[in-house]
């Protein structure tokens, strides 16, 4: 076959992929829209009050794995202790910090060593000590040897948790005051609910006081702005669509509420999983569906918590490569679920689509850009057509992101200033020119790292609010 023929065939593949991808995005948008519409009609003030009407709402253990967090940990815990949901305990797991995280906690909360006994159904690295606070009875601190993973620290926290439900979060996650009462509702409504995730917002550019986001605003950095619209797309298109089909495959590590017994039943977080949150979510789906037991993983489409997005390229690159490695590892681990009717929409739709669009997608995209550019350079493709193809890609990408912005407006009603809306719309268009290509490239780099067995987190710079 001539070079022209090869390029034509490749163009056909890329075009088909592109069309299916856009149809998939729009279909997810429609499913997400329907989900939001139903959610808003179901969750009125009265139905949200269910928690306060119960004689004994479920105890939630908030597990906070902390490693070298001495600068922020006190403020994080104070914010957790001020949550609106009363029946909760805070389990901080000091995961072998080399800084003074533990001594800061000891000083601030007057911790004392205690012979706290707890069941240890999940294997973890050795626990060095257990502390309880004299001033805050709901606070427990577990000091353990680090096993080098958040999964191990989370498992230690789950072991020590006495709640029926455990909330796994990052030490730097900022929860909304009503996050727990919103998160608990799906468990009260449906006894088959084993986990609930929520919309994680990006706090960069927002007014933050006492570890709470008071006024959401757009950041100055375009990199952070692109991530805001990217999160909207990820949470409000993909996850809402999955939730509408009871096929959620990822409960974010920043905010994941789980039924403790279900997590223990599947063996807790996997120690060697790079994307431990996705790994656990799919394992829960697989475990219950394989046993033909009803299972539901819920999604709360309003911001339940906020996190900080990296604003420099090296940190973002490291994060994206790690996410990519985690995704590929999880897809490979659960390849038996792919296309298997027993696993319902998870096996038949969501995971296959994830494999195609997230797994192979970046490779096709980068190859598409390279081949099209080469074709234009050697004169097989006319430059005007080249520009048209790029413009089509940008316009469809922007349409999808604008749909996510619309869903964000309908669900969370944040970024309400006119200037913020203009910036969101601009970011929705501009992210397709450079940022998206960069992400696809990092996807390729992450794939190579996954194939060569690279591990580790890489650099991650954080800024104070």
């Amino acid at each position, binding site marked *: 076959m*001539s070079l*022209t*023929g090869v*390029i*034509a065939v490749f*163009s*056909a593949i890329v*075009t088909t992929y592109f069309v299916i991808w856009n149809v998939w995005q729009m279909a997810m948008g429609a499913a997400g829209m329907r989900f939001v519409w139903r959610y808003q*009609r*179901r969750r*009125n*003030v*009265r*139905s949200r*009050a*269910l928690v*306060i*009407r*119960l*004689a004994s709402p479920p105890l939630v253990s908030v597990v906070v794995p902390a490693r070298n967090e001495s600068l922020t940990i006190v403020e994080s815990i104070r914010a957790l202790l001020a949550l609106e949901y009363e029946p909760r305990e805070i389990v901080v797991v000091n995961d072998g910090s080399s800084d003074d995280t533990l001594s800061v906690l000891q000083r601030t909360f007057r911790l004392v060593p*205690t*012979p*706290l*006994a707890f*069941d240890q159904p999940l294997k973890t690295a050795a626990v060095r000590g257990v502390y309880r606070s004299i001033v805050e009875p709901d606070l427990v601190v577990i000091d353990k040897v680090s096993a080098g993973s958040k999964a191990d620290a989370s498992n230690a926290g789950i072991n020590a948790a006495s709640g029926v439900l455990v909330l796994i979060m990052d030490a730097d996650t900022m929860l909304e005051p009503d996050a727990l009462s919103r998160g608990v*509702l799906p*468990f*009260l*409504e*449906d*006894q088959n609910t084993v986990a609930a995730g929520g919309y994680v917002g990006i706090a960069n550019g927002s007014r933050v006081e006492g570890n709470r986001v008071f006024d959401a605003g757009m950041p100055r950095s375009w990199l952070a702005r692109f991530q805001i619209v990217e999160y909207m797309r990820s949470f409000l298109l993909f996850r809402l669509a999955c939730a509408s089909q009871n096929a959620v495959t990822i409960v974010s590590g920043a905010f994941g509420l789980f039924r403790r017994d279900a997590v223990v039943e599947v063996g807790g977080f996997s120690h060697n999983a790079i994307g431990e949150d996705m790994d656990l979510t799919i394992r829960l789906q697989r475990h219950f569906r394989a046993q033909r037991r009803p299972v539901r993983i819920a999604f709360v489409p309003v911001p339940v918590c906020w996190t900080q997005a990296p604003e420099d390229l090296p940190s973002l690159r490291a994060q994206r490569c790690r996410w990519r490695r985690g995704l590929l590892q999880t897809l490979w681990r659960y390849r038996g679920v792919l296309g298997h009717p027993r696993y319902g929409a998870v096996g038949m739709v969501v995971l296959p689509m994830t494999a195609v669009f997230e797994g192979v997608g970046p490779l096709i995209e980068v190859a598409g850009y390279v081949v099209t550019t080469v074709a234009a350079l050697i004169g*097989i*493709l*006319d430059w005007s*057509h080249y520009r*048209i*193809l790029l*413009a*089509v890609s*940008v*316009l*469809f990408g*922007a*349409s999808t992101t*604008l*749909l996510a*912005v*619309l869903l964000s*407006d*309908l669900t969370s*009603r944040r970024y*309400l200033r006119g200037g913020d*809306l203009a910036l969101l*719309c601009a970011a929705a*268009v501009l992210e397709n020119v450079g940022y998206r290509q960069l992400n696809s490239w990092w996807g390729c780099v992450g794939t190579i790292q996954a194939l060569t067995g690279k591990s580790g987190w890489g650099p991650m710079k954080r800024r104070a609010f």
Partner: protein
Amino acid sequence: MNGALLNIDRVALWALWAGLALAAAMAVIVIIVRLGLIAHQRFVRRLTRRYGPLIDRALRGDAGAIDSLVRSPSHYRLELARRLIFPLVEDRRPDRIAATRDIIRAMSLVPLADRWLRSRRWWRRVPALHAFGLLQFADRARQLVAALDDDNAEVRNAALDALADLHDPATLPAIVVRLHDTSLQRGRRAAALAAFGSQCEEFLLELSSVDPAQRVNYAKALTICGTVRSRSVLCEWTADAREAVRAAALEALARIGLDDRAAALAIAALDSSDVQERAMAAAALHGWTGGGDAPSHLARHLGDSWPVAVRAAHALRSIGPAGCAALRPYAARDDQAGVLARQMLWDAEAAV
């Protein structure tokens, strides 16, 4: 092959226009929705400024303020109704409910709610049910009970909420007989029982005598609303052939409290082969200082399965000096019983 490329280019040109139209349409929709949100926010601010103080005065019985609300423009009515009704979710003072009900009646909003209750759209029926429940319209109890059999699950659950808010003892049988209805959310079923509290008890006991197959559910319900009146029945259920019933009965006894007979049964249940039953028996003995030598029996279970051991340990701590005395011999051990004993003794000392 060139023809194929040409075709792809034609498709690309077509796609360009489609993409342009789609992006423009999305941008317009985003802007329209945003303008709608801003307009709504302004409307709400205006309404709050103008009617907020009037609502406060009307609730205090100011006839002039009520008259102003009655004469408010029709397009303000729904938002005003929300502002009047939604605070009742948390504020259940009878005088506040009565005052709000009178204002809603005066504003002629009851016929609208009735219309919504008959609407074919479930999202209209749900707020109408909530409104009637929160405002305690006793004369609508029949419609609320009928809504428990609605085709739509959202409406059925809203009806349960409404009946819990209505708090009319006449509707209690309708709620209790749906205790086993799994199409109703279990949290809402529990909340409805909790709303009536011990008023449910008599009916639960009556039903349980004619429907022993559902005894486990009745026992769980008695955990929420049972009193000492249920104790003898629950004691009988601790001899039921089903483990789940025995465990649920002991759990209910743990909530209600024991007498000598119940304590003896709980102590005997500590030797059951079922973990859940032993765990609930240990929980039931929480704070029991009567006869039967509960501390020594409980202490034997400090090395039992975790759910039993932890409850036994807490029960021992709650018993006081006798419980601590039973814990002390275990405190020097290296096993689970030892750690639990040390923790409980530490907790007891910290409490002092």
